[in-house]
């Protein structure tokens, strides 16, 4: 049994209300999202957890403004989302970096309007933040998957957005790199005070990262349960509370934690 904690006080940054999404094909309609309602506070780290293909990526694409929902609304800072906006950046898997630009070119991509000196300074700052010093002139195809993912995170952070959307960002990385990247994302989140919406199908990942885990059902996806993770960072992955929360979610999804 997972104890439910009252939400922390704080200003609501993002609010999803009565959201439905149905894809119309020629033969039939496919309901993907049903009646999603969720509030995210400023600076909060929320993981959306669900089985593959449940529609959680669709939800993220709607919140980011790339897709229009069938009904319902998404508000950010009280303003209805009508399209993508540089104040909220979507981070794809590492395949989203631009292969024709160097590390520097990618990180500076959204900084076209800044004077050159300021642009240089920002690029250097974020190169350092994600630990890519010495690779400024390298092209993505010369980098490892983890490094490419860092480039993409840095490119997003460089425009100083309030919100980051991450769609299974570490899914294509090996398990060791994935752990390192989670640690770095948490460090960056704490340093830069962003609101983060993070989609994953990995239960462990969600419990390691999030303030709250939003557990989705299979398609059509609804919110099954919202689980607050009341563990301070850095999190001890063998502590009783961590295991309790993790196993609680495994149970919630109907998986015995055995193999």
């Amino acid at each position, binding site marked *: 049994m997972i104890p439910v904690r009252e939400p922390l006080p704080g200003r609501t940054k993002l609010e999803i209300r009565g959201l439905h999404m149905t894809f119309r094909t020629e033969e039939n309609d496919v309901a993907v999202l049903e009646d999603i309602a969720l509030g995210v506070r400023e600076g909060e780290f929320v993981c959306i957890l669900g089985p593959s293909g449940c529609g959680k990526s669709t939800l993220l694409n709607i919140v980011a403004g790339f897709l229009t929902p069938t009904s319902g609304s998404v508000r950010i800072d009280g303003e209805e989302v009508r399209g993508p906006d540089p104040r909220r950046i979507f981070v794809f898997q590492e395949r989203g970096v631009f292969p024709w630009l160097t590390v520097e070119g990618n990180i500076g991509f959204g900084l076209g309007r800044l004077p050159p000196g300021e642009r240089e300074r920002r690029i250097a700052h974020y190169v350092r933040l994600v630990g890519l010093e010495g690779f400024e002139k390298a*092209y993505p195809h010369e980098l490892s998957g983890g490094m490419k993912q860092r480039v993409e995170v840095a490119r997003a952070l460089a425009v100083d957005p309030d919100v980051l959307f991450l769609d299974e960002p570490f899914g294509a990385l090996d398990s060791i790199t994935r752990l390192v990247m989670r640690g770095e994302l948490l460090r960056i989140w704490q340093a830069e005070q962003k609101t983060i919406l993070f989609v994953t199908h990995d239960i462990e990942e969600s419990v390691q990262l999030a303030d709250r885990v939003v557990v989705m059902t299979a398609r059509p996806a609804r919110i099954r349960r919202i689980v607050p993770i009341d563990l301070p960072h850095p999190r001890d992955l063998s502590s009783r509370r961590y295991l309790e929360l993790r196993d609680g979610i495994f149970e919630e999804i109907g998986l015995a934690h055995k193999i």
Partner: protein
Amino acid sequence: MTSRGRLEAILLPAAAAAVLIAFWQVAVRWTGTNVFPSPGAVARGFAELARKGLLLRYSRDSLLRVAAGYGAALVVGIPAGVFLGWRPAVARAVNPVIQLLRPISPLAWIPVAIVLFGVSNVAAVFLIFLASLFPILVSAMNGVRGVPAMYRDAGRNFGLSERALLSRVVFPAALPEILTGLRLALGIAWIVVVAAEMIAVDSGLGYLVIDSRNAGKRYDLVVAAMLSIGAIGLVLNLLVQRVSRLRAVRWGFREETP
């Protein structure tokens, strides 16, 4: 590559060429032909052409025609292809016409070119233009159409206008495929210039081939002209290959490392 590997990379092709020339020499001797020239006769033919200054002048004339026709195809084909790739509705309307015209050999256009421009330099350039246009147009269209939605979404996310999205995301993302079309088109253009010069003009390497045959059956000069055409084509292809090794496009020409 090891030094031994490098040596082999030079020696083996040289040996293959030597065997071929020897075979040619033996075949000419053995058949006792007095029409087909021996390698030595062709070498003397080269020397004669060089002495008269024809080799350089005709090569230059052919290359200038290619430059004009191919250049015009670049200027028209790339923007048109990018536009069609970016506007799928327009592409759907125009595509059947493109697909109908594309398989027509540029040589079939020769009568049309002559009707339009007379037996002239312009007719030859027009043929090269037509021959280069379709590969360039189609590769630009497909290149733009194939740009992953992820890149476009990322560009829009950073607040790019449609124009900036085209120039900063869509065009560079499509560039490797466009370059492949450019390379293909240049090869075709070089083939077509030779054919066009046989009909429409009185200079160039294609003219040299046909003129050497007609004026006194000089097959030594015919073969010398053929070999010049091959050599220049080879150099052109190597030059375009170079372009695809530039770092900003190299990603599109090899398997991505995992």
